[in-house]
């Protein structure tokens, strides 16, 4: 039932250790918040899971396999920065995704674009930062993946669209799929999370369910985060 598992996962960039000895098991059917201050190793973790980085030591597996061609078919990844070509129209990017991923659902994507009033004939370069983010998230959530890796998915979008996107995340993933969301906007996403993982300076600090935190600490995950990572 595990979709992602790590053993002593370590990543260093030269002398700097970005992640140190991370051990975790992520079951299917969960929405997990990967939380930590800036520079804590969140993006490194997501990039390792997406197969964009290779571990320095230890291992990470997705559905039993090391990240590679097979796992990329099962993982839908939203990167921090856009990798889409600016001159393309949304409709062209959709065709591109449809070609590339067998699990891509065009109708779903088109419905979401309509809901968010995005014209498929518009080119990316004419769009605001927030609208670009919405387009990317729509593309990523329109795949029937087993693991969604969302690196800072809601940073630039307005609160109303944020609610829509969170609802999209809740309703779109299948029960055997899991979603990992890295963010520092904890209060906004707390209600849709099952579990949270706190990382700090490359180390796993806490992993717990949201309701467990509220039960034992009598405060929200956001409140606990502010306390643990007080500057």
């Amino acid at each position: 039932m595990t979709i992602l598992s790590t053993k002593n996962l370590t990543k260093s960039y030269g002398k700097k250790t970005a992640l140190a000895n991370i051990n975790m098991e992520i079951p299917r059917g969960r929405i997990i918040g990967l939380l930590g201050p800036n520079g804590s190793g969140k993006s490194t973790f997501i990039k390792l899971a997406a197969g964009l980085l290779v571990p320095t030591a230890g291992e990470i597996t997705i559905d039993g396999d090391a990240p590679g061609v097979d796992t990329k078919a099962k993982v839908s990844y939203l990167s921090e920065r856009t990798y889409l070509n600016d001159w393309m129209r949304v409709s062209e990017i959709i065709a591109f995704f449809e070609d590339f991923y067998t699990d891509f659902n065009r109708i779903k994507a088109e419905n979401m674009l309509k809901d968010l009033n995005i014209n498929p004939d518009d080119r990316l370069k004419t769009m605001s930062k927030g609208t670009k983010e919405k387009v990317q998230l729509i593309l990523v959530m329109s795949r029937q993946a087993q693991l969604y890796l969302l690196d800072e998915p809601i940073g630039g979008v307005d609160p109303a669209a944020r609610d829509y996107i969170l609802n999209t995340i809740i309703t779109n993933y299948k029960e055997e799929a899991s979603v990992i969301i890295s963010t520092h906007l904890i209060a906004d996403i707390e209600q849709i999370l099952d579990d949270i993982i706190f990382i700090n300076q490359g180390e796993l600090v806490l992993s717990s369910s949201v309701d467990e935190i509220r039960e034992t600490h009598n405060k929200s995950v956001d409140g606990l985060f502010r306390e643990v990572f007080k500057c």
Partner: protein
Amino acid sequence: MKWYIDSDRPIYKQLVEQIELRIISGVYAPGDKLESVREMAMDAGVNPNTMQKALAELERMELVFAQRTSGRFITEDLKVIEEAKKNLAVQEIGAFLEKMKKLGMGRNEILVLMEKIEEGEKDDDHIKH
């Protein structure tokens, strides 16, 4: 109807309370079919697993029952609903008395004040009519 989730208590508990209140106040009538977990989760803006947990708790409280193929329903047992209502009233009154104690209000003082307020409401009704 809107859902209110505050930040420092377990989310599933708050869902249990709010669904319970809807049952007691008749928003959900006895025998009503509930929407699917996913639809309810989306409506409340919460994780489906959390909504599932809340509904399981309501089942345990016998306010809700599941029928294997056709979904979840509100209990038709009015006694269970009446009991829940009474329990909730006892809790609310307990909390109220606790607050009044903090304000230094004695039992008689509270009663006199309550009567006064009730009369005030009646007077208002007269004016309106």
